[in-house]
């Protein structure tokens, strides 16, 4: 089962339109909410008058910060940060100052969403504008007025490994360049949403819509509202994509449930796309100043990096994790011991930020891989060759970079980087000549190598139950936003239990069914979730064999699992079904556990297995190579990606079809980030991109044929199955490889250093100075 291209069981309901996303759920007496958001980037709220809105028939309430408990704290970080972020945390609803366009100010609850929007237009708010911190550059300028008493910088940190200055002094060549990555976001096709319902008499709050880390978020809600974990159920419906942004603990996750309690009726809030642009975590905005040195023979000797990230107006649950990962992993897959980085997390009057698929890595790869090409150019060396000479070798594994991020060491557990590199290069035909450009078209080829840390802990849970009818259910602590868990996890269990994968049901993301769960982020489900399921399946197997041994009067090692039965391997006609074993192991059943004569004792606990897995902190490291051929129209700046190949050593592919899907989908999302997508602000802090007509996602026309090369060379040593996470390598190298291919096509030394690569920017590179 493991390793097979099994078709996904969840597809049927999605294709038939029977998926149940949060907006598809309705409850009796439910009301609809609209979140009134700040139109101002930075302002004091002078007055607020909702009387006209409240007078509208069908409007139940207009809630503001004053309606939240006075003791409510701001939303805390859930991840270790560099320094204290307390001064920069966001309150669920703005109190007296708003700090970005889109910050929630009030919640209007009405009989319909349309009516709530009508009412919102009647709310009169008077603002007193405050000076705007437009971007990180302004934040770093001491002359800029302070957004917060401590200033406009959330935190600064760095690493200084080896002897960087000596390396530069002794280097044969040095190159230097600055790079900037634009603000964009995950932009899942489904917007966010929540439905909260409170049973006051039983003190039971149910919330549909949370995903990604439902258990963590439930605990945060409980702490903030002074409730018990057991009084709250978070339930994940079908989810239309997350890519890192959805499912963090957002302001709405607090005030929608709280106001449902307060109103005494269920409240549904479905974010619309316009809100989504201003309120979901933004990501990626940062600049790198990079200096690198190398010897004549192409050995890279040092990186010196200044990293400045613009995190927006508040520090959210993710803290400074994005620049933190970028700073910790900047050296990439290369054996470099002299590395210095100075990192700054700046604040500005823009939407706060968080992670987006390959957080920090997409950005760092864009800078580092261009610098590596610059070294090669300066040395007159083939661009594959310089990489070849610097990759970490198998006998150097595990490789400790020497840095940490969120208290985890940056450690590559295993890998044959040169092996995959050579396989990728030869599969693509790196040295085959590029087709000649016709007329104004110039062609170029790019290559990048990268390593993506994945599959972080701290833990994951799994329980497998086989009921007395023989039906098997997997309860996983991992959550699902479309990755295929309902197929992939059963494949793992099927391998152990000898039950076909499509006979399992998978339950996930529901705190009422699953006591503890880690969730889904950092490509961790295959690593953490699957290994937990694997061990739970082994536990079920052990139990089944032990019971069957007694029932069949055989030794355990004579038994095997086959198609829902335990058989005597030498004589398959002697068997007992798992259903039968489950019946026997039902609590209260007299078989195998006779009634005690004197005192009560432990009973059967079902044909079940439950595990809680603890992960090594550093997770696993996935190596990947991206290569692309592009055609640049030097008359118009139009870019065509003609060929794309992405490879990844995933250790072990549980379902290669799903892995390839992750790679290809990731590449296309990366093409968006490289060429099209930007959350743009004007100098006054106003968001300029408020619709899909100006925030551009790649469509079917913009994408090339993509070849995904999935190899299973270097098993992870961090887990039983040997798997590594594959969710992020597809996106991670896209901007980098396209930039390198463009620079190659230009052949003038000009480089795309600023994302996104619009026709205008590309034409600027063709005609410098124009």
């Amino acid at each position, binding site marked *: 089962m493991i390793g097979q291209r099994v078709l996904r069981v969840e597809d049927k309901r999605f294709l038939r339109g029977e998926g149940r996303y949060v907006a598809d759920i309705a409850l009796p007496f439910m009301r609809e909410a609209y979140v009134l958001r700040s139109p101002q980037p930075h302002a004091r709220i002078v007055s607020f008058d909702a009387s006209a809105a409240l007078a509208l028939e069908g409007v139940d309430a207009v809630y503001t910060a004053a309606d939240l408990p006075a003791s409510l704290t701001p939303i805390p970080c859930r991840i270790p940060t560099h320094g204290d972020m307390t001064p920069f945390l966001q309150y669920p609803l703005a109190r007296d100052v708003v700090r970005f366009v889109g910050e929630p100010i009030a919640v209007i609850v009405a009989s*319909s*969403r*349309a009516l709530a*929007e*009508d009412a919102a*237009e009647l709310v009169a708010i008077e603002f007193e504008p405050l000076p705007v911190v437009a971007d990180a550059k302004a934040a770093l300028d001491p002359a800029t007025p302070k957004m917060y008493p401590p200033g406009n910088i959330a935190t600064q940190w760095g690493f200084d490994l080896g002897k960087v200055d000596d390396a530069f002094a002794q280097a044969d060549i040095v190159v230097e360049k600055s790079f900037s990555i634009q603000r964009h976001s995950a932009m899942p096709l489904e917007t966010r949403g929540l439905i909260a319902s409170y049973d006051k008499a039983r003190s039971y709050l149910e919330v549909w819509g949370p995903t990604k880390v439902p258990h963590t978020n439930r605990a945060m809600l409980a702490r903030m509202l002074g409730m018990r974990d057991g009084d709250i159920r978070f339930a994940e419906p079908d989810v239309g994509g997350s890519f890192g942004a959805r499912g963090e603990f957002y302001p709405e996750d607090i005030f929608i449930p709280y106001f449902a309690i307060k109103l005494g009726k269920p409240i549904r809030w479905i974010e*619309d*796309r*316009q809100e989504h642009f201003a309120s979901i975590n933004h990501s990626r905005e940062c600049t790198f100043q990079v200096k690198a040195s190398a010897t004549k023979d192409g050995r890279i000797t040092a990186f010196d990096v200044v990293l400045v990230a613009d995190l927006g107006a508040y520090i959210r649950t993710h803290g400074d994790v994005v620049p933190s990962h970028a700073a910790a992993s900047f050296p990439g897959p290369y054996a470099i011991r002299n590395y210095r980085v100075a990192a700054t997390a700046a604040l500005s009057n823009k939407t706060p930020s968080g992670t987006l698929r390959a957080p920090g890595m997409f950005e760092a790869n864009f800078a580092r891989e261009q610098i590596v090409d610059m070294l090669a150019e300066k040395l007159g060396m083939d661009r594959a060759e310089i990489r070849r000479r610097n990759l970490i070798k198998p006998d150097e594994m595990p490789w400790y970079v020497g840095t940490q991020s969120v208290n985890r060491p940056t450690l590559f557990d295993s890998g044959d980087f040169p092996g995959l590199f050579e396989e990728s290069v030869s599969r693509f035909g790196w040295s085959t000549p590029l087709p000649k450009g016709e007329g*104004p078209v110039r062609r170029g080829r790019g290559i990048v190598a990268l390593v993506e840390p994945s599959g972080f802990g701290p833990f994951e849970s799994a329980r497998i139950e086989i009921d007395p009818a023989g039906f098997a259910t997997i309860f996983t602590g991992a959550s699902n936003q479309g990755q295929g868990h309902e197929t992939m996890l059963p494949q793992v269990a099927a391998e152990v239990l000898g039950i076909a994968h499509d006979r399992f049901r998978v339950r996930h993301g529901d705190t009422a069914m699953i006591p503890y769960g880690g969730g889904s982020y950092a490509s961790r489900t295959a690593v953490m979730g699957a290994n937990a399921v694997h061990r739970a399946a082994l536990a079920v197997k052990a139990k089944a064999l032990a019971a069957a041994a007694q029932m069949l009067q055989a030794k355990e090692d004579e038994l095997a699992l086959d198609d829902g039965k335990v058989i005597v391997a030498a004589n398959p006609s002697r068997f007992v079904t798992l259903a039968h074993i489950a019946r026997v192991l039902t609590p209260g059943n007299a078989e195998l556990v006779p009634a005690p004569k004197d005192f009560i004792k432990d009973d059967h606990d079902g044909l079940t297995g439950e595990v809680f897995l603890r992960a090594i902190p550093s997770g696993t490291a996935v190596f990947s190579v991206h290569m692309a051929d592009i055609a640049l129209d030097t*008359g*118009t*700046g*139009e870019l065509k990606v003609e060929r794309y190949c992405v490879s990844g050593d995933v250790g072990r592919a549980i379902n290669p079809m799903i892995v390839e899907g992750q790679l290809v989908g990731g590449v296309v999302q990366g093409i968006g980030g490289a060429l*099209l997508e930007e959350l*743009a602000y004007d100098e006054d802090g106003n968001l*300029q991109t408020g*619709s899909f*007509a*100006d925030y*551009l996602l*790649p*469509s079917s*026309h*913009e994408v090339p044929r993509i070849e995904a090369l999935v190899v299973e060379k270097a098993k992870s040593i961090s887990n039983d199955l040997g798997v590594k996470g594959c969710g992020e390598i597809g996106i991670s190298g896209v901007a980098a490889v396209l930039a390198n291919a463009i620079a190659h096509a230009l052949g003038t030394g000009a480089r795309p250093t600023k994302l996104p690569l*619009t*026709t*205008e920017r590309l*034409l600027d590179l063709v*005609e410098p100075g*124009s």
Partner: protein
Amino acid sequence: MKPAPFDYEAPTTVADALKLLGSHEDARPIAGGQSLVPMLAFRLARPSLLVDLNRIPSLSGIEEKGGVLRIGAMTRQAKVLASDVVKRHAPLLVQALENVGHPPTRARGTIGGSCAHADPAAELPSAMIALDATMVIAGSGGERRVRADDFFIGAFETALQPGEILVALELSKQQGVSAFLEVSARKGDFGIVTVAARVAVKDGRCIDAALVLGGIAERSVRCAEAERILKEQGATPKAIDAVLAALPLDAVTMDSRSASAAHRRRLIPELCRRAIEAALASQVTP
């Protein structure tokens, strides 16, 4: 993103539609809804009454009579794109339409709606100007005809007076070969710069030419001087050089985050050259 409330009527005759439009302060026609409904959703448009033109049979259809092609304003873009008559009679219109939106937006979006909407980056206005189309307008005072070049006034502004309806477009048979080129961020998007080119060559002489730029200013810009050079000097390589030197680059006023005025300016000569060459090379001769 739910529209503000409005009333709705669906008349079946132009006369009734005009009456309804005249009866309400902020009444507005709705055609394919592909531009208007998003504006309603963002509450950028707040009509009191929507007068639906979709149930007026006389507003749809493609008809060739006496050398004049009449396309009803409510004819769907997809119908026009697939029409053999249009392909024969006015290939430039088809060439332009290929760049407009996507199959589902063209299945609802109308020819008249696009013209009445007059987005400065829309393709159809340029095509209409380059084809010397006549816009047929109905109002309370009866019908009037306006040349396309006079119809398009500014950004989202046309010769349509409040209460009037665009009922049809009339096209004489296209003179010469044509091409429509654009640079846009993605295929199917509005253009950053669009060029409609039409060149009629007879016995080695250029007898008619049209070169119209879109996406660069409040409305499409006809390159009169360049057209004159083409007509005087013929579509020779030398003349084309002169044409490119005579383009109205100072007409560029569109300057946005997605494309600066300078970028649009430098795209224009390149696109014009390609459009003229593509037109001359095109097999489609009406």
